[in-house]
């Protein structure tokens, strides 16, 4: 699928709404295995994205990706800021040359892995991205795929981030970053980018 300025803005709007609606849920998920602020941090970031997009009115997808990346990097903080920020920054850089969604998201995933040093199986957002990005390539992504990918982090032992201090005790909890990443993919479906 191809990214256009219209569907990209729609995607971000729906993602922002999902984050805002589920802010307390995300922070609750973060409480037993993190520090209880994932929802608030992401909501602050996506509110900044919305505000900056409205005030700066970027002309093309490069501009929209860039504004999104910079807002997330400067407003979210924690680990999520650099990770989501890097994902959108990689897409901003690549979108000058391609508007293919799967290609862009592949580069975004590579950026996340490089920034955070996490691999699949570490109970992080990477677990969701690794499973779902290939489904963008063959155009087969469904909500059931997203739910399964998010759910898969529940039985994993955290090896990165604050949850890693819990070791085995992290089992049984969903990874909050995986859940917010799930929303990003759900928003793709709902925005009709997919």
């Amino acid at each position, binding site marked *: 699928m191809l990214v256009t300025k219209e569907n990209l803005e729609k995607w971000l709007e729906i993602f922002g709404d999902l984050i805002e609606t589920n802010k307390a849920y995300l922070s609750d998920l973060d409480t037993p295995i993190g520090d*209880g602020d994932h929802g608030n941090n992401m909501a602050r970031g996506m509110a900044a994205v919305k505000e900056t997009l409205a005030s700066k009115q970027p002309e093309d997808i490069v501009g929209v990706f860039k504004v999104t990346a910079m807002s997330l990097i*400067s407003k979210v*903080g*924690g*680990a999520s*800021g650099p990770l989501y920020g890097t994902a959108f920054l990689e897409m901003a850089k690549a979108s000058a040359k391609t508007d293919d969604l799967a290609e862009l998201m592949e580069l975004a995933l590579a950026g996340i892995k490089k920034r955070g040093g996490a691999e699949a199986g570490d109970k992080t957002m990477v677990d969701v991205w690794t499973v779902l990005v290939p489904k963008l390539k063959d155009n087969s992504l469904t909500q059931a795929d997203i739910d399964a990918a998010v759910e898969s982090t529940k039985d994993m032992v955290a090896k*990165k981030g604050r949850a890693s*201090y819990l*070791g085995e005790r992290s089992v049984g909890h969903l990874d909050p970053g995986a859940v917010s990443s799930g929303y990003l993919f759900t928003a793709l479906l709902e925005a009709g980018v997919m």
Partner: protein
Amino acid sequence: MKKIINNPADVVPEMVNGMVRLYPQYIEKIDGTEVMVRSDKESMQGKVGIVSGGGSGHEPSHAGFVGKGMLSAAVAGQVFTSPTPDQIYEAIKAVDSGKGVFLVIKNYSGDVMNFDMAKDMAEMDDIEVKSIIVNDDIAVEDSLYTQGRRGVAGTVLMHKILGAAADQGASLDEIEELAKKVLPNLKTIGVALSAATVPEVGKPGFELAEDEIEYGVGIHSEPGYRREKIKPSKELVAELIEKLDEELHLDKDKKYAVLINGMGATPLMEQYVFGNDVLDALEAKGVKPVFTKAGNYMTSIEMAGISLTIFELAEDKWLEYLNYPVETIAW
């Protein structure tokens, strides 16, 4: 939640404004940021800048240690959330006087990533930046398969040592070498009696029963290694000293500094009782610390609890650095 605040979302900017307005002799704010930089600009000329920072909620860390002889600037993130790269970058730019800037980072994924991004930004501006990742908390295992050990109260001693060296004209390379030498000698362990409540979250980060304590809790309410019933101070001290001894192999012929750190809600009265027991326990091992300090240095909002840092002074110069005069809010 019962706190003396206004809107929970405004806690950090309002706190920063309060700090710079109450202590203009030490710190000032960079407009449009939550960066607090040393007011005495003269004292930074021709010297390496030392920048630290992290989530808010650890006051007086980190801005309380900004001033002549210690930090050049501190960056305050949201509560328990790393500051963002753009803000750290502003701090780096503000304190660079051509000799480079050294970053003191506590080992949390967020801090490491955000400070790294800021470093990249500064390097594009041709500012030379080096850093140390402090991981003094021995409560969690240091493993390749986790984030590794956390940075806690020992970080304040790292600030002190590096700040003194920078003030005496050490180069960026010398500061890096010093930081690397200090790090393995710096060990901390703590115990918590109750959890902190992040204002925007509104409820405690974990629950402990009225008569329960937890060893090894982190400064953001990260879980520790064991829970049990509250015990007399002497017994708590015995447990903590034993853990530290396993790491440092306390030796009566070596020199040590001791930092007793309150987590926010533990009164000085209790810290002094604990301190008395710490000195007894060390004396029983033939160890007489050459530098001691107690108070609230690296807190966790209103968490009740205490941490004990023991720092082996492998070089005599380090004791001089600890005793070097500073002009800060909180040292």
